[in-house]
């Protein structure tokens, strides 16, 4: 068995195990962290499949944005953490084991960059730049879906703000009154005072 196969089996096994842990652990924060582990392993698999751009996108968008969003929401919602506090000490060995596995994977994926790609069949032009190829296709042939995707993101942005924005006066919360700020005149903003030189205002 080649080294690359070993990397594939390691990454896919940890990905599936982490996926099972996502749906089976009690603490939702742990679930989100196991989801991050799953994403990370699949990003490693994408690197093995010579899709480096997509692996980087996965890390940045899924792990960097979506998982962080999940964590924020899980922590905002009032979930019962009392069971977590009891099991803190007995979970320490498990945390160490998972950390060691993570570290071993980083080392293995980094070392496998010299071991060659999977499949053995090179593309016709030799070593091509994955990002350049995707860029060439994405902005010419798939330009229309690309623009549509940006519109989808805009709609999602507006929708998320509209859903969660709490307007109106609440006690103890300072808020801006934008209309009042914009209708400010010069007399309200600036005051001229006569000051003798050497004295303060």
């Amino acid at each position, binding site marked *: 068995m080649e080294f690359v196969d070993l990397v*594939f089996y390691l990454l896919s096994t940890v990905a599936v195990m982490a996926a099972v842990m996502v749906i089976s652990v009690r603490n939702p924060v742990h679930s989100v962290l196991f989801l991050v582990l799953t994403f990370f392993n699949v990003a490693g*698999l*994408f690197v093995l*499949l*010579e*899709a480096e751009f997509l692996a980087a996108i996965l890390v940045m968008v899924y792990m960097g944005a979506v998982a962080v969003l*999940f964590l924020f929401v899980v922590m905002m*919602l009032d979930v019962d953490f009392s069971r977590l506090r009891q099991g803190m000490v007995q979970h320490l060995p498990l945390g160490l084991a998972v950390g060691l596995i993570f570290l071993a994977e980083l080392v293995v994926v980094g070392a496998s960059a010299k071991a060659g790609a999977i499949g*053995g069949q090179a593309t016709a032009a030799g070593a091509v730049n994955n990002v350049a190829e*995707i860029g060439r296709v994405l902005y010419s042939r798939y330009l229309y879906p690309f623009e549509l995707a940006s519109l989808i993101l805009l709609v999602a942005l507006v929708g998320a703000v509209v859903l969660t924005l709490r307007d109106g006066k609440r006690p103890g919360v300072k808020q801006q009154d934008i209309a009042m700020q914009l209708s400010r005149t010069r007399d309200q903003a600036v005051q001229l005072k006569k000051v003798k030189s050497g004295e303060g205002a």
Partner: protein
Amino acid sequence: MTMSLNHYLVLSALLFTVGVLGIFLNRKNVIIILMSIEMMLLAVNVNFVAFSHYRHDLTGQIFAFFVVTVAAAEAAIGLAILVTFFRNRATIDVEEIDSLKG
């Protein structure tokens, strides 16, 4: 034994099944449902990229790119709905989200 397409398809099927099970078996937590949806979309992405690699066609990766985009947008909206719901109801138990029940 070098990896073939079948290995990646099996992996994608496993991840997708775990995602579906997460929706089935979960009775307590709406966030687990949202995470299971993300996992299913991830499995689909693995499928796309594996086919793109073994057929030497970039279309799979382009589509996976768009799937990531839409999944992120949908996660944001789903969580916004969840937060709004929690503000009104103070619970995220799946059993209690039934006001549209016939």
